[in-house]
């Protein structure tokens, strides 16, 4: 299902985001470009502090108060949402764009039953219909046994894997155009992780664009079609998963791969990411900032 000619589910062009510290605006994202086609799972890969979560926040209209978009654009399903107000975002979030976050316990309200929380999403974005039947259908789709019992349960009564399935069911409930999965399996056991990845893969086959934000190159290799590597708010490399894993072009991508443990190669020593490389990347980012300031 490769609709490369169709309108991208997400298109980010030259996105700049700054965050206020005292009196100055510090650049966080420095000209981020990538797009996610419908039916494709695209990965945004990087380490903490690289800006990947800031991208996820920007494309869901959830940037912190102290942050602003200072350049570029974000289009969701062809619609420019770059400077939308919170009221406009409310019509979109949960409807055309939804999220699956790392920790399902914080995504769910601990004192409300699963069924009531899921029903909120449907009531906010869809008209009437038989909500109960829809909810059962959604839970069956994410392969939860005894959906009736799950609807009556509170979040703490479910296992971590079950909770994440509920969150995924909520994210898919309104058939959004774009789903942001931010480290969706990091908190899960490995055997559960595989089941959840399989589920995301199957649901994406329905034609939604999925942006997977992660630090785990193993997950990217198994689940995604394409990826962008981000560091210091800049995309350093992008391409198809086959091409990048076969021949990573950027030194940072190579360093990340060398630092990733290999079960199949026990003698492979984990190569530490070179401090010199990180320093030079940070220097490049600062040079980019001053160049941009001069040209502005």
């Amino acid at each position, binding site marked *: 299902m490769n609709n490369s000619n169709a309108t991208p589910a997400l298109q980010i062009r030259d996105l700049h985001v700054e965050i206020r510290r005292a009196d100055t605006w510090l650049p966080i994202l420095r000209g981020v470009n990538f797009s996610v086609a419908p039916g494709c799972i695209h990965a945004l890969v990087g380490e903490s502090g690289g800006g990947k979560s800031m991208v996820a926040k920007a494309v869901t209209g959830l940037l912190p108060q102290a942050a602003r978009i200072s350049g570029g654009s974000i289009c969701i399903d062809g619609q420019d949402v770059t400077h939308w107000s919170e009221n406009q975002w409310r019509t979109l979030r949960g409807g055309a764009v939804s999220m699956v976050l790392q920790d399902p316990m914080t995504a769910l309200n601990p004192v409300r039953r699963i069924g009531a929380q899921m029903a909120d999403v449907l009531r906010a974005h869809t008209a009437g219909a038989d909500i109960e039947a829809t909810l059962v259908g959604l839970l069956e789709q994410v*392969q939860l046994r005894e959906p009736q019992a799950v609807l009556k349960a509170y979040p703490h009564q479910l296992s971590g894997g079950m909770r994440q399935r509920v969150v995924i069911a909520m994210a898919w409930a309104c058939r959004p155009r774009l789903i942001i999965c931010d480290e969706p399996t990091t908190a899960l056991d490995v055997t559960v992780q595989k089941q959840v990845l399989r589920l995301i893969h199957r649901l994406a086959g329905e034609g939604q664009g999925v942006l997977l934000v992660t630090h785990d190159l193993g997950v990217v*290799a*198994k689940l995604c079609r394409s990826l962008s590597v981000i560091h210091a708010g800049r995309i350093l490399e992008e391409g198809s998963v*086959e091409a990048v*894993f076969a021949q990573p072009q950027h030194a940072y991508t190579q360093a990340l791969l060398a*630092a990733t443990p290999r079960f199949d190669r026990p003698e492979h020593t*984990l190569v530490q990411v070179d401090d010199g490389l990180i320093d030079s990347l940070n220097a490049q980012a600062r040079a980019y900032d001053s160049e941009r300031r001069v040209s502005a």
Partner: protein
Amino acid sequence: MSPPLLQVKGLGLSLPDMAHKSLFAAAPMKRIFSNISFELQAGSSLGVIGESGSGKSTLARALTLIMPPQEGELLFRGESVLAFNEQQRINYRSQLQMIFQDPMSSLNPRRRISDIIAQPLQVLGQDVSASDRLDKVIQLLRRVGLDSSLAARYPHQLSGGQRQRVGIARALALQPVALIADEVTSGLDVSAQARIVALLQALRREEGLALIFISHDLSLVRSLCDDVLILRQGEVMEQGAAAQIFSQPRHAYTRDLMDAIALPEPDAGWLERGQTTAGA
């Protein structure tokens, strides 16, 4: 031949099950793990693999007597730890030091790095003068690859990887013979993780420290450990030499765990292969 450093025979631990406590009666006991046996030779390494609820962290607490085990035997250099008097227990604990999963919650946020690392010296060590103590702290910081200028900082001023190395420096302060590392890299980026793994390998190689490495990550265990013990819901599924178990897993659960490893290599068929049990 001298007895092994640590000998564990049929270790078991139960805790009150608060989830099933009725209002007035005492909570029923729930078995956390049972019948665990292994030997740890000086300088060797044992990987304990398990998913959440397997009892692997509680096992670490039992070995360090934070939660004393109720069943079985625990021998340190051939002597029964559970029969130790208070002074012997203190000595045993200083020989077997623990590094925790989340350095942010295991380091006191209100104390400087130098105080955090020096604390075991003050509490359990041969107490020395303040200047000697600072020398020792700086030596420990260097040992874990941190700059001595970090001594005056607070935990929140350090990165996650640096904090974890402070946790290791503190564990090394009393010159232990063994470290117990409980999921020490699971909150870290791959580059910080690679540094911690290299540090643990260097400590084994250069100082002959024994290591009990508790993790859910089979790849890390395979590269760090001589022996492996696979736990599931408090029971040992399989144990033995790492090379043997990972090349010829006998237990279905071990195979499930191995199937679930996402290698950083594109493979379209991987998602469809292996166990398909739903509803977990």
